[in-house]
């Protein structure tokens, strides 16, 4: 009996890893993909080596794109009479519907609300209360904020200067993201847009 339970414990560990990998792999293989514009910086993770932190354009959502439930929640939080019920650290889950430019594949925010939309491509995000204001929501996290790369390649991303591009030229970076039916996003790649901008300081050198 004890031997069978130990075997079940082994299976539990294998299944947890399998589920983690399998869910993401399923999204990568079956879900629609969009491109998201971003700006990278290069920190290092103790367990996972180099990665690029990504700040997306869609991480900032102006109030004009709030859905009715989200509008009501933010108004309630700002209300002094009942606002104390919401901790400043607590997170809310958002469903951000995306509109995709068919020519470039680039996605931008159509609107955001507390429930998933009936149709269309949407992405699930989380945001803390202190990043929510009546005018905009900032720093929405979609669980795709880190792009893991081989150790030593971080600076190329940080400088936004891929191979083949002149020194001092910065290329905008875009991430390819597969989005599952429940809004879970998985990073599947990146591209450098050809339209570059030269940094004046470096050009002067």
């Amino acid at each position, binding site marked *: 009996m*004890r*031997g069978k*339970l*130990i*075997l079940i*414990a*082994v299976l*539990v*560990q*294998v299944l*947890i*890893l*399998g589920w*983690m*990998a399998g869910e*993401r*792999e399923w999204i*990568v293989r079956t879900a629609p993909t969009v491109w998201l514009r971003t700006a990278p910086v290069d920190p290092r*993770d103790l*367990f*996972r*080596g*180099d*990665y690029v932190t990504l700040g997306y354009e869609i991480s900032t959502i102006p109030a004009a794109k709030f859905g009715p439930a989200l509008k009501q929640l933010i108004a309630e939080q700002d209300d002094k009479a009942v606002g*104390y*019920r*919401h*901790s400043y*650290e607590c997170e809310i889950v958002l469903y951000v519907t995306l509109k995709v430019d068919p020519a470039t594949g680039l996605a931008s925010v159509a609107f955001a609300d507390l429930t998933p939309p009936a149709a269309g491509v949407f992405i699930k995000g*989380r945001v803390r209360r202190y990043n929510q204001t009546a005018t905009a929501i900032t720093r929405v*996290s979609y*669980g*795709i*904020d*880190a*792009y*893991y*790369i*081989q*150790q030593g*390649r971080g600076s190329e991303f940080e400088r936004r200067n891929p191979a083949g591009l002149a020194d001092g030229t910065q290329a905008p970076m875009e991430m390819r993201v597969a989005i599952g039916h429940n809004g879970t996003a*998985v*990073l599947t790649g990146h591209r450098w847009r050809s339209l570059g901008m030269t940094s004046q300081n470096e050009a002067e050198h």
Partner: protein
Amino acid sequence: MAKHEHRILEKLDEWTAAGLISSAQAAAIRAREPGPKSTPPWGIMIFAGSGAVVLGMGVILLFAYNWDQMHKFGKLAIIFTALAAAHTTGIILRSKNLTPGFADAAFLLGTMIFGAGIWLVAQIYHISAHYPNAFVVWAIGALLFAWLLPSVAQGLLAAVLIATWACCEAVSYDSHPVAAPLLVLVGSGWLAWRMRSPVLLAVAAVSFVVSMGVGLVFHAGCVMVVLLGTTLMLESAAWLARDCASFPAATRILHITGIILYLPVLFILTFHDAAKDLLRNSYWSDQPPPHEWLPLVVLILAVMGLFAGVWYRAVTEQRFNTQKFRSHLLAPALIFTTYLIAWWAPLLSDTALSIHQPNAATMLCAAANALFIYHILGNLWTGCRNSRLRQVVGGSLLLAVWIFARFADLFDSLLVRGTMFMVMGAGLFAVAVIYQRNKSHLPAVTNPLNPGKED
């Protein structure tokens, strides 16, 4: 103790030959002392266990390199194969029952690879959502094996991981996992008790204290309630465990953890400014949400319930009038109760909080000072009377710390300061004399195996 018994058995033949004892007496002693007990293979467990942990960390760091050339399925295949291989080795070694230490180490390696796998999958699929979850999932994987094998090493890993999870939640997300102390208590603490493992109990106790501090302190003002409550819980548990003959180390471990937490907290409260600031910060500016005050209420009720159980038992066994009960339990209970009164009494009054709050701080500070002095005198008195050097030194150190602290914040006259130092010096001198005199009057108890060495 077991070492002494072993040495006595070794010396029996020598004593019989010297005519000190008869053969019949030697046989009677042999029959009474069962001889050295079989102990777990600590050498294998420590070295193989450490090897497993280091190997697992190596796997994590190796994959952290994140080779671009290796396909993601290759990486996944390696991690799944390594996980299965480690656990299969553990199962085979366990079924052959040759060296349980090696089987434990193999399972521990498997759990380390499981942890590495969590980070690797997150790396392959660029998952960055809420990283502390990885620690709690890893801890649950370790707890499964800790209970099923059962294994001290897996329990230790789980206790460390749960504390790490709680700290990461607090530091990175400013959130408070209330479940963390419960998970430590049920997952590692209970297992330590069942396995009678002092090492696991000690680590679980520390992990419990950390998890309580991180998990329940939603607001800076409630930090003292949580810390004093945790102290009282540990001391109550130590008291309840004292009659358990099969796990005599438990009382000492729980008491030491409790006292290490209690004395600094009590010392902080002896400063009037600290007591005033702590109390001032204790009042929420608005009504806190239930998820913040409910755990505190549960903690206070749990502490009270546990202490009531200890009190009932001490009264029925007529043990409540002992120095240990007063020092280990009544004193923490008194300061805990005083803190609660100082916290809540001003709120219940009709007049303004600002009028009552300084009085409450003075009351709390006076109580803390009185209890600190009580611990000083108690240690010195008991230590001198029973010739216990450790207690005398402890009491003297507490006295010195208290006098130096008061030197700065209480006495504004050089005359008073000078007098206090003279009193302290004379007191310490008197302690030395009394200790030495009592020691020389005590009947000489020497170890028969090492004459001249104190037993």
